[in-house]
């Protein structure tokens, strides 16, 4: 007979799940929301929640902000990144976290229904227009500004 781990059966006043239920109840009663938080609050969490809902994500930009955003997404359990693209022709074809970097045109052709997330901080509007001109519906384009969540 295989033994499983011996749980702690000591009789005492403390029980993890009882306390956790009290804590969850307190949060619900007080209606505490992540959006109120000062440092990482609204923008970061709202963005991550939005990304989590997407079936396919293409990350636009493979520079330092792109790398940072990629890692943040993974840290938040977002595994739906299907591709990456960049305007820098020298980067196209190279590997970025196991993804081959595509040109924006190829990325749009390959993943027409993906959500395109723009990471470069200084060219976000130009990139948004570029993607729109390539045929990506605006509702499928999202800018993630590192400065808004103190990640940069």
């Amino acid at each position: 007979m295989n033994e499983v781990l011996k749980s702690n059966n000591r009789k005492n006043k403390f029980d993890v799940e009882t306390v956790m239920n009290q804590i969850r109840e307190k949060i619900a009663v007080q209606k505490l929301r992540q959006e109120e938080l000062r440092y990482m609050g609204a923008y970061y969490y709202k963005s991550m929640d939005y990304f989590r809902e997407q079936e396919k994500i293409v990350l636009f930009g493979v520079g330092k902000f792109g790398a940072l955003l990629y890692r943040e997404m993974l840290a938040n359990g977002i595994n739906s990144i299907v591709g990456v693209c960049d305007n820098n022709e020298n980067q196209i074809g190279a590997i970025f976290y196991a993804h081959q970097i595509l040109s924006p045109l190829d990325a749009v052709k390959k993943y027409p229904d993906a959500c395109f997330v723009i990471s470069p901080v200084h060219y976000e509007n130009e990139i948004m227009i570029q993607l729109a001109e390539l045929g990506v519906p605006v509702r499928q384009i999202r800018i993630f500004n590192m400065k808004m969540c103190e990640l940069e």
Partner: protein
Amino acid sequence: MEKNKIAFVVQRYGLEVNGGAEYHCRVLAEHLSAKYEVSVLTTCAIGYCPWDNYYNSGREELNNVTVYRYPVERIRNEKLYAELFSEMKKGNEKIEEEFIDEVGPYCPSLIEDLKWKAKEFKAVIFVTYLFYTTIRGLQLKLDNAILLPTAHDETQIYWSLYKDVFRSPAAMLYNSVEEMNFLWEKFGISQKKFRLTCVGIEIPEQKKYNQVERYKEYKNYIVYVGRISSGKNYEELNRFFIEFKERNPSDLKMLVIGKADNGMRLICSDDIIYTGFVSEEEKIQIMYHAKLLVMPSNQESLSLVILESMALKRPVLVNGRCAVLKGQCIRSNAGLYYTDYYEFELCLNYIMSHEEEYNEMCKNGYYFVKANYNWDVVVENVSALINEL
């Protein structure tokens, strides 16, 4: 009386090797050497990227264990590896053989030797499911093979090539209930012989430890121990603690023990003190004087530092999104878990303000570790499985 022989097969082995699974293999081999004649079949590599030969090939005695090292015959080509990885992700099964050789450490002489030596051993324990040494070794279909996978929910485990890896061994050694349940569900291997808990910790002597001189000024702090890296989800803890201090002003600090990965971007604060690398002795001293240990990691197959904290009678605050950490927390009844900022804040405040419950958590953790993770228990556990083969 002559001892039975057992062998470990692992991708890297040695005092200088960094890596949780490799450390796990070494301490388990060393503790089993009291009961068995233990051999380790490994490569000459020290790092996994690119698996270059660091150690001399041949035989070496290390802490009562006989280590046989075989040279890596081809180092990993990162570009090719990335391309193959990408193809594997797409489900391209035609490149599986090429991928296995490229994932490395490519060491056919080890496998060839194992083919002839395996019968000498009562058991051959393969450590970590991911690499060439385990994949090719298990392809030999040894009837005395045990797999200690150190697995968690990650990309590769969904690839078809790993189905055989999990179905081939005669028995399994799991690190946690959560790992076991995940693998049973994923591969339907619940019929295999198995044991849970295959690593122990040295229970620190129950005494009062002096604080490290340079940290004596900090009377009220929590502690993080581990790599300061994205892989450990440290950035989240960084942000959460700063937010906590904004909303809950006090003299509470966070001492952070460990080395930061290159390129980590951290938010600075006077309330967070980075100690850098400290000796094992200093680590214990700092942990002993902490109120609790916090572990923000999302993916762990087992956290030894959590067990160490419990053994020192210090509660833990862990990331509840990691099934293994949450499970350890609930089973031990020695800490709390959070899944977002507010839970982090309320849990931390609870632990800091409920003295009676705090003391109960301290005791619970100690007894939990003593019952499950002391080396005598672990060695008996693993030996029982070996005897069943």
